[in-house]
């Protein structure tokens, strides 16, 4: 059965730091606030909860504060299927579909990892870096497993620490950025003491783990599962035995919903992000965006943007303006982050002709490379046309070939036919 449409003054998509911060500000105003997230527990990726990972620190404080607001409705385990006319969104959870009406919408859809295909990356046991962290927080056992963490950026350290705390042995952290870039970034952490403290804590926790810079994984080996990896380092190649490889190259904003809503995107660092003005307002009336979907910059920046977006959506420009200076400080951090961990162009050559590039449709790199645009490659090879709809190979194609992905079409994620059929009934009525 279809539930009656729900009406919200402010509807927020995404329950990570940006979405929860926006919800907190909005709920305090007494407005009818809704927050939608596809995960079972709120927190997003950085505050992801799990059986051995209850919320703590700022996440705990925020969730406790939100629990005191009866005017806040939480829709967990709920995905947005598609935008509908007249400020409505169709969503579905494991049981049912429904339509949500909103006055103002705040997009806090976050980011996903960027994967670059390399030989062996489809072997079971190879995950993303944040992917490993998420799986471990969900209860996946890693005790006594040897894990190589590779790719780029500070997330490698956080992922390594989460796995280590659950009993894994971190064989090495393999960072593609050059040693002097990383060193410059580390020195500049003095401008953001909270980030500096995090970095020092992680380094101390992992002080025995080798940290190779200017290095990257060139291949993963194994038959039915992962047995080891080859790493190219400045001093020469090295083979490592391991049961797991956690490898990803930074984060990419999630733009499917913003694009479907007609919000403009801009180029941000080496990716695309939702375009927002000083008030976190998108190019569409009554739609705001905050957090990693507007450009990857970390938890503190996301939190500030979420609060600014909510104040602005409530028409409280003065309250929003008071947060601009703090936001600018963390935007500067974000710029330093992207400069330091910019991807080495040599990574474009990671894939070999027979390397699976599109995992959903098993399309090899060589088949895709014969074409000169994402669209032509899709039409001729079916790359990007499987269940993930190019969310994984699209980011890789953007980096390897310089192709921008075409717009995602609704439904935005695999959806039950009953959900779509139910919609037809509603519209006909």
């Amino acid at each position, binding site marked *: 059965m279809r539930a009656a449409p729900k009406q919200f003054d402010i509807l927020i998509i995404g329950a990570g730091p940006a979405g929860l911060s926006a919800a907190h500000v909005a709920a305090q105003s007494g407005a009818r606030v809704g927050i939608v997230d*596809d*995960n*079972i527990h709120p927190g997003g*990726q950085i505050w992801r909860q*799990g*059986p051995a990972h209850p919320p703590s620190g700022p996440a705990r404080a925020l969730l406790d504060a939100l629990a005191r607001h009866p005017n806040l409705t939480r829709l967990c*385990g709920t995905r947005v299927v598609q935008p509908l006319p007249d400020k409505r969104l169709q969503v579905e959870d*494991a049981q049912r579909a429904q339509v949500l009406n909103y006055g103002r919408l705040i997009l806090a859809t976050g980011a*996903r*990892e960027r*994967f670059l295909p390399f030989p062996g990356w*489809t*072997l*079971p*046991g*190879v*995950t*993303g870096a*944040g*992917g*490993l*962290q*998420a*799986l471990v927080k*969900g*209860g*996946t*056992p*890693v005790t006594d*497993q040897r894990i190589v963490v590779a790719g780029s950026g500070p997330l490698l350290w956080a992922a390594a620490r989460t796995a280590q705390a659950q009993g894994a042995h971190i064989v090495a952290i393999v960072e593609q950025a050059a040693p002097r870039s990383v060193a410059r970034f580390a020195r500049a952490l003095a401008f953001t003491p909270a980030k500096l403290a995090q970095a020092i804590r992680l380094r101390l926790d992992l002080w025995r783990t080798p940290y190779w810079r200017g290095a990257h994984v060139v291949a993963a080996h*194994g038959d*039915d*599962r*992962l047995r080891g990896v080859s790493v190219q380092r400045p001093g020469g190649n090295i083979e490592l035995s391991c*049961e*797991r490889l956690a490898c990803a190259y930074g984060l990419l904003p999630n733009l499917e919903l913003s694009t479907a809503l007609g919000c403009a995107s801009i180029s941000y660092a080496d990716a695309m992000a939702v375009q927002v003005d000083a008030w976190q307002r998108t190019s569409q009336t009554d739609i705001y965006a905050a957090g990693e979907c507007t450009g990857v910059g970390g938890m503190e920046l996301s939190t500030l943007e979420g609060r600014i977006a909510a104040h602005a959506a409530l028409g409280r420009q003065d309250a929003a303006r008071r947060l601009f200076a703090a936001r600018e400080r963390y935007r500067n951090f974000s710029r330093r982050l992207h400069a330091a961990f910019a991807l080495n162009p040599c990574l474009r050559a990671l894939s070999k002709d027979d390397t*699976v590039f599109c*995992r*959903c*449709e*098993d399309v090899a790199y060589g088949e895709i490379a014969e074409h000169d645009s994402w669209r032509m490659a899709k039409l001729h090879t079916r790359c990007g046309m*499987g*269940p*993930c709809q190019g*969310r*994984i190979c699209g980011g890789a194609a953007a980096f390897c070939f310089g192709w921008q992905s075409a717009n995602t079409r609704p439904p935005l994620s*695999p959806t039950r036919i009953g959900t779509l059929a139910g919609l037809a009934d509603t519209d006909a009525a």
Partner: protein
Amino acid sequence: MAEHIELDIDGRRVAVPTGVTVAAAIAHAMVDTLGSGVITRRSVSGALRGPLCGMGVCQECRVTINGRAHRLACQTPIAAGMRIETATDCGAPT
């Protein structure tokens, strides 16, 4: 020590800690035989695949839960008595 609940993975009765995801439950059930190599599905050309992104984006962790195909193991919490089917038996693609 966490409490355990029982469910069925590929016809095997297993006890896994409460509160974990289906992806984690499969890992607990397979850890003795497969180590870290959790397998959830077969690709369109038959290769074994396991979870990649851990956050509901990549669709690699699709399994059949209680007869319903294409459920994401990484985003589904376990429940007592749940029946989970993966591609480990080298049977039909999941």
